């Protein structure tokens, strides 16, 4: 599904809508080129999950872990990794197996590597502040929730457009 975010605030709000459909043990891949806003999406998801305090880029530290209201959230970044063995070393699969939520920036390294997940791809637009956002689900885990997520994000997009008109 394709969405349009008119501002960084809208991007965070879309992330919050997605967060409200997450279940314990879910993995979310955050994709998009440098400066597109992957960390902003992670900040939006974390805030909606109840993480307080700053959510910073994990590029150098590789994984940051936060306590949400109901879940532990691991925020990973594969930008610096060079091969698949190094991804296994981060133990992200173990985190999701124990019921934690895993967010992976630069995680679009192949559906077979990451397993079942939701992918949010964010892209730069003509205008500096707005972004194209594309969301897709990989695996049976999302089968039942997907139509609900689509409906919710469409509802959000319509309200956002109305708001912009005023």
């Amino acid at each position, binding site marked *: 599904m394709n969405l349009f975010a008119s501002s960084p605030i809208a991007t965070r709000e879309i992330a919050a809508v997605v967060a409200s459909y997450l279940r314990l043990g879910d993995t979310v891949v955050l994709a998009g080129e440098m*400066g597109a806003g992957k*960390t*902003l999406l992670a900040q939006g998801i974390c805030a909606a999950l109840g993480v307080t305090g700053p959510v910073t*880029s994990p590029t*150098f*530290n590789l994984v940051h872990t936060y306590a949400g209201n109901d879940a532990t959230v691991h925020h990973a970044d594969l930008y*610096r990794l060079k091969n698949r*063995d190094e991804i296994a*070393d981060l133990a992200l699969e173990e985190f999701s197996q124990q019921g934690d939520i895993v967010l992976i920036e630069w995680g679009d390294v192949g559906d077979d590597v990451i397993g079942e997940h939701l992918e949010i791809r964010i892209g730069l637009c003509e205008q500096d502040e707005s972004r194209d956002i594309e969301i897709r689900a990989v695996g049976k885990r999302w089968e039942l929730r997907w139509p609900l997520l689509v409906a919710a994000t469409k509802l959000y997009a319509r309200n956002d457009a109305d708001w912009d008109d005023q």
Partner: protein
Amino acid sequence: MHIDNSTVVLGIESSCDETAAAIVMGGNDVLSSVVSSQIDIHAKFGGVVPEVASRAHLELMQPVINEAIQLAGIGSERINAVATTVGPGLIGALLVGVSAGKAMAYGLGVPFIGVNHLEAHLYAALLEEPQLPFPAVVLLVSGGNTLLIHMTAPGEYSLLGATIDDAAGEAFDKIARFLDIGYPGGPAVDAAAQLGNPQSVEFPRAMLHDGLDFSFSGLKTSVINYVRKNPDVASQDIAASFQHAVVDVLVVKTLRAAQQVGAKSIVLGGGVAANSLLRSEMQRVGSGAGFHVALPSKAMCTDNAAMIASAGWYRLRDHGPSGLDTGAIPHLSLTGSTVRGNRGERK
């Protein structure tokens, strides 16, 4: 046990990319300091070494420790304590160092000291300048951290500010990659900036007049947007203007922090402290405002084990050893949870 200027501490570091070991006597006399990336691993140990994996630490740990002991010119029986980074960092990477450190301590029958990696960076300046005037404000700025710390004495500190998104070093690295001017990004931007005009583009200085926290994500996006729209502007000019914006913010906020807490010294630490403009501007502005400015050598600014051994010496003297049940603490914060000291529990 009695801790004095002859107490020899083996320091071990494996929290991030570097595998490192060092021998430090009396808290600040560095007898040896070995960092894996600084030695020719391919020649010495053979094989391809992955950069980040904990497997790399595992392969390098023992050779690096042996090298440190050998270079110090001492026998291992001269080691009085073993200090090891227990956090923050990746669990797999940390465990390699913690396991090696505890095994060494147990085998030698000497105390083990768990050290906070961030805290250890604060001791790096003391290694080269033991008489540093306190209180000090430390700007710890690397790929993974951008922190302003108030240090009133060794072991006594509080956090004044931090980045709310990207670390400054990460911004350097990503902009270098984006401009395609080389790797690692810090030195590449530094070198390109020497040839460019720092006034050519006015990039934003986020939160410049607002508190002691930092934000570099918007600057990164701003550079990317600018280059997309102005592809003909020379990358040297972009690099110089970008670096100027980062350094401006770092210097202004550090000076503000130092004035707010009434510091005597300003101290730089972390990999970005090797940046030539940051060093010269901090020296110029800091000295001009009447502060003593300490600029540790690059080897002491970046990750190393000498600072771990030094922090371990102070911790052993002031708080006693950690238990051998001490584990890795991946999310250890600078001021939050501290490493348990079990004074008197073990002899």
